């Protein structure tokens, strides 16, 4: 019944690269031959759907409707493999088993959901049903920054939690609390990933330092890159520029996800 793994991507601060990382990781894992789903929790701001080329005007029903029993999960899943157009990187996903599930569990709506009694078990059942219906190996969830209740729900249900951090002390401080929470909620696999690392740092040293501090594996140190800033929100960067340092390091993170038992 519980074959597929739930992978949550989180960061303490906003703009750390969750959406870009989630989309690229999901794409890499799909290219490795896995069946992959992505829950997009961010329809308002340019989020994952943009990276996968889904027009928000064409988005109909969302995960919320599904959770409320107002839609079937089949109605919500958007097949990326069948709509791999409008980007050189995206085109490489043609024929792959990758689906996007738009949702809008955020802000005002979360309190509404809680009021209406969508609790942890209901969310969890919904995610499990998604996995079963689409026979998924991995279901990625792009969360919101900070530790609000919605994020806590995602962490609690995760088999794998990837925490993205920028290498500065403010982020490390915030990340330390998330690490403690993940341990308190018994997340089986806790992976760290550094993004937007300035080239002035020694990446090998950085990885070691952070691993020592948190006693968790740093699966990749991804550089701050103008190429990415220029390009990323239009296409899947790691597919379009596979030889770029950012892409190479990202594939290392994908390998770590695939390697979790």
């Amino acid at each position: 019944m519980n074959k597929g793994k739930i992978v949550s991507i989180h960061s303490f601060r906003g703009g750390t690269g969750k959406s870009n990382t989630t989309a690229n990781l999901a794409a890499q894992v799909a290219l490795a031959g896995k069946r992959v789903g992505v829950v997009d929790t961010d329809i308002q701001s340019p989020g994952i759907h943009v990276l996968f080329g889904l027009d928000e005007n064409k988005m109909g029903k969302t995960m919320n409707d599904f959770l409320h029993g107002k839609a079937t999960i089949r109605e919500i899943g958007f097949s990326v493999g069948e709509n791999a157009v409008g980007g050189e990187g995206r085109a490489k996903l043609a024929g792959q088993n990758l689906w996007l599930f738009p949702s809008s569990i955020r802000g005002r709506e979360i309190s509404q959901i809680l009021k209406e009694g969508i609790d942890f078990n209901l969310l969890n059942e919904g995610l499990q049903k998604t996995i079963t219906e689409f026979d998924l190996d991995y279901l990625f969830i792009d969360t919101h920054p900070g530790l609000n209740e919605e994020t806590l729900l995602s962490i609690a249900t995760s088999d794998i939690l990837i925490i993205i951090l920028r290498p500065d002390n403010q982020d490390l401080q915030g990340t330390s609390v998330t690490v403690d929470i993940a341990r308190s909620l018994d997340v089986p696999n806790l992976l760290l990933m550094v993004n937007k690392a300035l080239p002035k740092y020694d990446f090998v040293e950085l990885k070691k330092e952070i691993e020592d501090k948190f006693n968790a594996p740093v699966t990749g140190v991804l550089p701050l890159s103008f190429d990415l800033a220029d390009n990323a929100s239009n296409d899947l960067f790691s597919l379009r520029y596979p030889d770029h340092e950012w892409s190479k390091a990202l594939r290392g993170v994908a390998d770590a996800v695939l390697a979790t038992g």
Partner: protein
Amino acid sequence: MKSDILNQLQKTSMFMNLSEEALADLAVKASTRTLEKDEVLMRKGERGDSLFLIHDGWVKIVTEDSKGDELIINKCGPGETIGEMSLLDGSPRSATVIALTASEVFELKQDVFEEILDQRTDVSLAIIRSYSERLRFATTYIEKAIDWSQKTAEGDYSFVEQTQPLMNDSASNDDKAAQLLSTFFTMVRRVKEREDGLKQQLEKLTIEIDQARRKQEFEEITGTEFYANLKEQAKTLRQKRAQG
């Protein structure tokens, strides 16, 4: 005297394929010129119709900078050749040449040279051969330079180690293509050294986590009823998943 000329002609790349006997023929037709210090051997823009071999002394090759001041491009001494190409194409001199010291040079005139080319097909052929050989070398060097440029752009410096012994014997003076490659190589090595130097200066991030604050924030989050419930439910869920 003529044997000096012969010796020197032999070392000139243009004539390297000529037989002793053909070279001797050329040497006989060359004339000797003595220059006083500061005497002008040729002027920029003049029609070039001869080749000079420096036998003794030093000359400077100069041009003008944008302000009209003299700019020394190079200095040449005994054994070096000036204006080799002019023998064939008669193109205007690209720079002015002035004697730095009292000097003695051998001059081979274009008309004399052409006369020999007319009379002796073996000389003509040898010259053509030496040119095509140089062209072939130049092409190989250019290909090498392209290959190295691409590697350098990708940050792959592995060729520097492999090529080191090969580039140590400095290229002969009249082989500009080899000089280009040699200079290019030196440039890449310097760039690599600077890059290595920079790498060593990489910074280390000093991580400081305020443990008291960390604990306080953790307790704020986990102290709610919502969290207590969630933790309980998560625990049950994980047990259920573990059982499959």
